Structures are given as C-alpha cells and as structure tokens.
C-alpha cells in the first residue's frame, strides 16, 4: 500500500503542473486570442457606444426610473439594482412576507400610473441575474401611454417603436417573445424631439 502511494507522488505532482499549464493557462489564453480576433465585439461584452462614451451592454439591463423611458424589471443585483458587478436574484421563497410586500408595493405604484389594466407579472418580479435586459411584449405595451405622455408623442408612434422592438422565439419555440429595454429606449432617443 505504501509502495502504491509512493509510486503516485511523481505522476500526481508533475501532471498537476502540466495540466495547470495546459488547461489553466494555455487553453483560456488561446481562446482569448481567438475570440478577440474572430468576434471582438462579443468577446468584449457586446458594448453599445455613443461616440467615445460606453452606454452599456446590449446583453445587460440597466436602471430606468424616469417616465420618459421604458422600465425594466425590478432588480436584486447590488444595493440599487442592475449592478453589473454584483449579479444576484432576490432568493425570496414563495411564502415570503418580504416578497409579498414588495410585489404589493410595486403593483400599487404601477396601478397608479396605469390604472385599470392588469399588471404584467414580469414588471413586479425580480429576474434571476438582476441584470435581465428584457421584458415581455405585454410589459412594454403596458408602459406605452406613460412614455408617450412624458415625451409628448402620439401613442401610436411609441407603440410602433415597441412593435418593431419585439423579438420572436426562434423557430417558434426556442426562447420567449421579448423586448430589449435598452435598445427600445435608444430607439426613442433617436427620434427627433417632438413638438
């Protein structure tokens, strides 16, 4: 038994170092090189720029609180939400008082600005990552009146922008219908000022 163990020392030590070099250094570095060469935009985080300024990432949600923008989902990432350096879900269970209180408050706020319509569930639930870039089409249409009002645009114009922003499931079943909130808000800003 001791001999068995002794004979394993050299292979264990040497293979650890060799595999560390191959799998821990060479493999990720080679892929970094290949990724930067072949898919530079994606490999660096699918960033959206406005001239020099980085506005965000196409894949990462950000906070929108003003009436002039469509809002994303509530977020549990970081203290203020949408902290892209601290992804997190709420982890509240189904019978959680804290969850019920939060949803109740959010439903009340939404019903105040948009009375008389059922609240889309994704607008009052936090995502798993806290960085969900999407909302469902329902949740986008729900906000059309508020955004149009704040911008002084006809509702039909804003609804048209939402229509154009809806992404459908690939092949009819892969993925869910969704709207990228940052992209939709950019399309709003890209319109010439109204009035």
């Amino acid at each position, binding site marked *: *038994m001791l001999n068995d163990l002794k004979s394993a*020392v*050299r*292979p*264990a030590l040497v*293979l*650890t170092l*060799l595999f*560390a070099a191959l799998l821990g250094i060479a*493999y990720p570095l080679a*892929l*970094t090189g290949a990724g930067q060469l*072949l*898919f530079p935009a994606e*490999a*660096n*985080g699918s*960033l959206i720029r406005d001239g020099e300024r*980085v506005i*965000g*990432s*196409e*894949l990462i949600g*950000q906070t929108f609180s003003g009436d002039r*923008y469509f809002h994303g989902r509530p977020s549990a990432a970081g203290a203020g939400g949408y902290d*892209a*350096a601290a*992804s*997190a879900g*709420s*982890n*509240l*269970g*189904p*019978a*959680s*008082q804290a969850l*019920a209180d939060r949803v109740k408050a959010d*439903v009340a706020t939404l019903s105040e600005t948009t009375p008389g319509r*059922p*609240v889309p*569930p*994704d607008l009052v*639930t*936090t*995502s*798993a*990552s*806290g*960085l*969900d870039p*999407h909302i*469902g089409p329902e949740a986008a249409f729900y906000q059309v009146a508020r955004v149009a009002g704040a911008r002084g645009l006809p509702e039909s114009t804003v609804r048209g922008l939402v229509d154009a922003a809806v992404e459908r*499931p690939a092949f009819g*079943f*892969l*993925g*869910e219908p*969704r709207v990228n909130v940052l992209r939709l*808000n950019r399309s709003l800003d890209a319109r010439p000022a109204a009035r």
Partner: protein
Amino acid sequence: MTVSGWALILLFVALTALLAKPMGLWLFALYEGRSTPLHRLLGPVERIFYRLAGIDPAEEQGWRRYALHMLLFNLVLLLFTYAVLRLQGVLPGNPQGFGAVGADGAFNAAVSFTTNTNWQWFAGETTMSNLSQMLGLTIHNFLSAATGIAVAFALFRGFARREIKTIGNFWADTTRVTLYLLLPLCIAYALFMIASGVPQTLAGSVDATTLEGVKQTIALGPVASQEAIKMLGTNGGGFFNANSAHPFENPTALTNFVQMLSIFAIGVGLTWCFGKAVGDTRQGWAILSAMGLLFVAGVAVTYWQEAAGNPILHQLGAAGGNMEGKEVRFGIAASALFSVVTTAASCGAVNAMHDSFTALGGLVPLFNMQLGEVVVGGVGAGIYGFLLFAILAVFVAGLMVGRTPEYVGKKIEAREVKLAVLAIAILPLVILGFTAIASVLPAGLAGPLNKGPHGFTEILYAFTSSAGNNGSAFAGLSAGTPFYNALLGIAMWLGRFFVIVPALAIAGSLAAKRHTPATSGSFPTTGGLWVGLLVGVILILGGLTFLPSLALGPVADHLAVTGGQLF
C-alpha cells in the same frame, strides 16, 4: 403550460437520446485505449506528459492502486488550488485587485471544485481574480470530470473483464479523457459561446454611463473558456454569481438549449459505452430508459408547478406563471427544464433561482439530488452511481425469485452488495446528519434568508447539493461563514470519495470473477420489467429515506402557500 414549452422539452429529450450513441462510440474508443482521429494531433502531447511524469500507460493497476493514485492526484490538485486562492493577492492576472481568499473560504472552494461539486459560497465577480478563475478553478472543471469518467471506465472493466485482478490505469484514463474528449470539445464549444455573446477577455470590467447618466460597472473576464467545461464536465461553477442566469454566461435561448444538451451529452454517452463494454448495447439503452422515465416525470412536475405560479402573488394582482427569479429570455419552460437537467445530472449550473421556485417546483431539483443524481448524472459519477443501484436491483430481484443474482454476466454476491449499500448509505447519512446539526446550532440557523419551512429547505438543499456534488443552491443561504464552509466542505469530500472508493472496490471484485453466461433462468436486465424494477429500487432505496425531511421543508412550504400563510 404551453404547446411551445412542451415542444422544447420533447425536442430536448429526443436530441439527448440521439447523442447517446455517437458520444458513446467516442468514449468507447477512449475506454479501450484505441486511437482516435485526434491522436495524430494530440498524441505527442500525451506522450510528453507520460514521459515527464514517469507514467507507463500500459501498466495495469489493481483497484487499490487505482484508488490510491486517484486519491493522491485529487489531494495534490486540491492543495494546488488552495495555494492559488490564498496567494491571489500577490499573483498576476488580477485586474480588479482582489485580496487573498480567506482560509475557510479557500478550503471550501478547493474541495468544491476538486469534487466536481462547484458549490460557490462566493460571488465570482467580487471574489475571484481572472487568474484564480482560470488556473485555480477551470483546471478542476476538466480534471474532476476526467476523474469521474476514469472511475466509470474502471467499473465498466470490472463487469467486462474475466478473472483478471486489474481495472486499468488511472493516469492513462484521466489523461486520455482530458486530451481527446474534453479539451477539443471545449475549444469548439467556447468559440460558439463567444460568437453568441459570452465575453472572453483578460479585462476585469468596463465602466459605462447609462442612458439616464448613471455609472454602471460591468464585470467581464475569460468567461467562455470556463463556461464550456462548466457544462460539459457537469461542474456548474459559474464565472458570475448568477451563473447561467447571467446574460454573459447564457445570452440567448439557443445558448441555453445547447447548455442543457451539453450537461447530458457525456452522461448519456457513458450509458451506451457501458452497454458496448459489456458486449450488449441493450444494457445501456435499458439504463437510459430508466433514467428517462425519472427525468420526464421530474420535468412534468416542475414545469406544471412553475407555470401554475404562486397563488399569493396572484391575489396581489400579479397573474400568470412564477417569474420571480427567472429571466424573460428563457421563460417558464426552459427554466423548469434547466433546473431538472442540472440536478438530475449533478451539474449545479442554474439559469433561474431555485430558491424562488414554487414549493413543489423546487422540491423536484432537491429530490433529484437526494436520489443520488443517477438520472444521467454527473460525468462518470452518474453511471457508476446508477450501477450501484443496478447491483441492488438484481439483488432485490434475486431475493424475490430465490436465486443468485447476476448482472451482465457477473454473479453479484455479498461483497458487492455490501459495498454498494455502503456507497449509497453515505448520502442520507451526510445529508440528514449535517442538516440536523445545522438546524439546531446558532451558527447554522444564522444562514437562511427565508423564514419558516423555506429556511429549513435552504439548509437541507445546501447539504444535499454538497454531499451529492451538485453545487446548485437555494442561494438565499448565507453560506460564506466558517461554519458552513467547513461543514459543507466535509460533506462534499465524503459524498465524492466515499462513493468512488467502494465503486472501485466493486470493480476489483467483479473483474476477478468468472463470466457467468446468461441462461433461461437468469433475470433479464434489458426489458420493461427490469426498467420498472430499477426505477422502483431508486425511488424506494434512494428516495424513501428523505421523505420526512421533504415533508418538513417543501411540503410544509406548499401547504403554507395554499393556506395563505406568510413568513
């Protein structure tokens, strides 16, 4: 539930079944030590590794030697990662300037990644430097997976060999699996992930100014290279805290689908490889069928519950399925499916927060792990765990008809049954014992985020996940404390190696036996009766022990929700 949701699930099941044979053929070549098309390219690397390490790949090892070499290698790897994490502050590749990981945290993480668990008490983006992720963690994603497949190969040889005392060479099995299977697949896979939007850069983060003029720091890193092996090796340790729910780890519905397939790919291939190794591929299909039944049942329950949603939120005016802790791009169906895949398979990656699932929707992932993750299971670990149950199943069948049990040409006798029971008993012992300890000590009770039965479920889930080497979490639990880091670390070690060593002992014992040809009196181990018996034995022997704990946790939680009781 929707038609498109079920279409997704059925397509997934069909594609998984289609993967079994091609993947199995490739695995079988490595099992036999035969040449593959990749040997021309990577053969020199393999030979240099052997020469430098002083390994003779043709040297046959008995089970004790095989087990000791496996253990020592894993111990050295563990110490290596412990050192990398403790020295993080002074090592390069640390653009965020993180300090050293604490002693208890580094111990837990090193055990976690060595044992293929990838339980993460930490949030990757705020704890681990790029070098720690690459050198300290990614390396285990490969080698713990390779270790699992090596052990499975050894057990296959136990069944396949006749009157031989040896079960293969651990170093050769591990090296071949890593070089000719995991590494090439991961290179292609990672490139696909990068093209889909998964970052692969040495930068730590980038600062953005949002449309509303707020600063947003976006964490980046070499994500894709870790992501590929995280799924293929059923490791599940995410680069970021939110794991495969993070848009940078899993940006689209397509990457999500591929991730689920890749969790199962090697596991289903191993069932076919087993059948081929024992000379009857129907044996492999029978195993896969039993796995498939348990899997589809689990998916149906979780999908049904999550689509039905949370009645408490319905009353508050938020109708529809349960979207708390889920991403819009995946929706209910793909989140439910992912949760069952990842816990059936000992992966532990998550694309939704299991902690926020409905009570019964979250019960299924928990129960999957308590069954020993034998529904496809972790790479290698799933099939050797399943074969332990198969040994018990033929034993039970033998008791019923009153003859010596046989399985794939080997007599199953007292020694094998004892060892199989030993390996299976470790799981309830560790899970229930440690959960009980944590549920009464103040240090344990400080952990849960949620109150009431759901808080107990968070503790139960943590020890189930760690002893089962899964790594997913009811993540509300604050597990980054010395108490949890130590206890969960021990649970992971026991759950891994106290199953592997008995499995190797069985391999050695079986390999030495004569081949017993099947006769008209043998119990057939391929038909529907056998599949039903397997499912029954797994549910009764594997599951029954845990029912009281489930009653205290998710079932009580469910009753509270239906009764409108909040905590």
